[in-house]
């Protein structure tokens, strides 16, 4: 997705400040949506959001609360915190939970725009990875259930003899499955196959969740 379609979401109960920041970002070439509370962002925020710029201190859900909710979602955009005064404890916590940046509301313009730029870039990266991941997942979907079982054993580095014993089939059948797998996934070596499986996040304990902290 290109920059043109993506928006920066400003979440701040201070309407005057959020209007001014919205103008600055528009002046810098971003599309912007403003929300008066974390609740309204969660209800109305669009898929196109590339970056959430949230006030730390808000009535109702605070910036931190919003972060906690977003953490649970797949494909949540990067978060930049804005605060009236620097608050070290909050900033440490926010950064540990993966915030893109933590800035005061009167931070230098360059710093602010850089943070937004970084967030957009990271969002673009994350979207790219998600797309790539989906393609990978798609190609793995072409494998039969038995081929999946064989693949699982292969990437664990087990020799064919052991795989055959574990699955209760003969070694030759294992070889046939392996050929089918490499053909379907278009890989030439076991090392390449292992990288592919890792990238697709297969065979980890909770394969359905997108890996965190990238």
């Amino acid at each position, binding site marked *: 997705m290109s920059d043109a379609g993506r928006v920066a979401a400003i979440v701040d109960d201070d309407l*005057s400040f959020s209007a*001014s920041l919205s*103008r600055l970002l528009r*002046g810098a070439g971003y599309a912007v949506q403003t929300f008066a509370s974390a609740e309204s962002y969660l209800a109305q925020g669009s898929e196109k959001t590339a970056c959430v710029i949230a006030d730390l201190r808000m009535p109702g859900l605070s910036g931190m609360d919003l972060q906690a909710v977003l953490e649970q979602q797949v494909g949540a955009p990067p978060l930049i915190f804005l605060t009236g005064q620097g608050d070290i404890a909050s900033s440490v916590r926010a950064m540990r939970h993966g915030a893109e940046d933590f800035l005061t509301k009167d931070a230098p*313009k360059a710093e602010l725009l850089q943070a937004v730029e970084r967030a957009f870039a990271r969002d673009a990266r994350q979207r790219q990875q998600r797309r790539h991941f989906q393609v990978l997942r798609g190609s793995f979907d072409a494998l039969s259930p038995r081929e999946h079982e064989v693949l699982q054993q292969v990437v664990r580095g087990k020799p064919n003899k052991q795989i055959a014993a574990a699955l209760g089939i003969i070694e030759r059948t294992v070889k046939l499955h392996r050929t089918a797998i490499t053909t379907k996934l278009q890989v030439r070596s076991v090392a390449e196959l292992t990288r592919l499986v890792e990238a697709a996040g297969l065979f980890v304990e909770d394969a359905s969740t997108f890996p965190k902290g990238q």
Partner: protein
Amino acid sequence: MNWITIVWPMVASACLTLGLIELRIALNRPLDGARLLFSLSAFAAAAACGLELAMMRANSPLQFQALLNGFDVAAGVVIASLGGFVWLYFRCGNKWLALAGPAIYAVGLVFEFLPGWALCDLTELQTIDTFGGASYRVAVLVPNPLIALPYLGVLLLLVFVVHASIELARRGQRRRAAVIGGSVVVWAIGAGTHSALIEVGVLQMPYLVSPAYLVIMLAMAYQLTSDVSAAAQLGRQLQESERRMDLASAAAGLGVWVWDLRRNAVWATAKIHSLFGIPQSERLDPARLIAAVHPDDRDALRHAVEASLTNDRDFEVEHRVPRGDAAVRWIATRGRVERDASGSPILLRGVALDISARRRSELELQQLQSQLAHSSRVSMLGQLSSALAHELHQPLCAILRNAEAAELFLQQDPPMLGELRPILADIRADNQRARDVIERLRRLLKRRSMASQTLALGDLFGDTAALTRADAAARSIRVEIEGGSDLPKVQGDPVHIQQVLLNLVVNAMDAIDREPADDRWVAVRARQHGRSEVEVAVSDSGHGIRPEDLGSLFEPFFTTKAEGMGIGLTIARTIVEAHGGRLWAENVPPAGATFRFTLPVAAEGAVR
């Protein structure tokens, strides 16, 4: 010249003398009816005395008869006036009995003057020699039964007097009953019996009605002397009590004044002159006193006096009296109206007191209190300072961002000038927002004394909300401030009432800060309380005040907070009470603590 011609005139002159004395006393204002009647009886006795003497020297039965008729009239007047005197003097006895005696006597007299009905026939005169070479004439009388009528009248008088005397004695005035009642009874029995014996022919003697009257005269003279000495004693006591009052009023610094409304004259003690700064030699009148009062206070004093005259209540005014130097003396003048029987005011009586010292210390106390209130405000704002800094920071940040955005719009090619107009409007609005924050702070931080004015609670509430918003957000406490705008205006000092409100809201937030964070709120509500008051309630979602703390909450230096001074609520209560309101706390479920205070509705507001 014999003893008879000496004794009877002496008796007559004694009667006249006492009669004149009593008449003089009776004519003193107010008119004394009892003494007037007594003097009449004394004059009648004097007349009877003269007639008795003339009868003793009568030359013919016809002359004797004429004199006797006159004598009977005089005796009747004595009887009637004595009866009336006893009735008025004792203020008791039977009225009908008092009237019956003279009435029956009068009927007897009517018969005496009717030709052919004379009470007794007079046949001849006899001359009787007595001791000392004196001689007198007596008549030989043949009475008819009608003679009983006058004696019946005397008897009724006797009964009336005895009855009235007993009643008076029962009421505790034994001496008066014995002396006056006794003397009248002795006279009536003595003179009556003696006359009756003469007229039935048992005694051949002259009438002794007037000499017998001497008994009454002695009794009255005795009564008069004791009255005079009692009056002298009263006078001495009065003087003594006046001296005591002078001493007391001088010691207390009190000036005493009396304003006679009928003559529009003022009597006052010397202290009044010195309190009002008027030379002792100058004569006082109401206008002079008012003129001595400070020009700004004259109307208040006049109104108070007029109100007192119409509604019959005591008045008290504290007013200034300019002194020679630029300073003023504070005087409290108090007064009371006195009315006559018909209810119209006749005089104002009152005192004046120098209260300058009290005023000074009140002023000092007020200054101290406002200093204390100021330091409490400063400390409270200190507590709110980080939140308020945020409140100020917010518009400044918005201004910065707007300016930066404007720069970016100008750098575009072509420059996006259309974007600039809303940006400039917002910058202006944010500048105003920041100024409002500073102005609110400046108002609260300024050191000032209390100045009452008419104010809308709605405006105050707006400021309270603005000042506490940031702090409440930081502590994630919901502060709901409602009402106020539809209520009548109140009378008060905006800064001090704002201080009370802030203090209660900040206290409430502190109280629930220690509670779990699920649903924390502070609510400020206002409602009209009766016609003359508005009540403001600040309640919170906390656990309320511990019952053992409820009593000491408003005591100075009582605090449950680690960093608290314990003077906030004390000052808040002082402020509210200085406004004529009350401030109290209670636990009202489902809320935690509720603090309520009342403020008086401003005069215009109360009229609606």
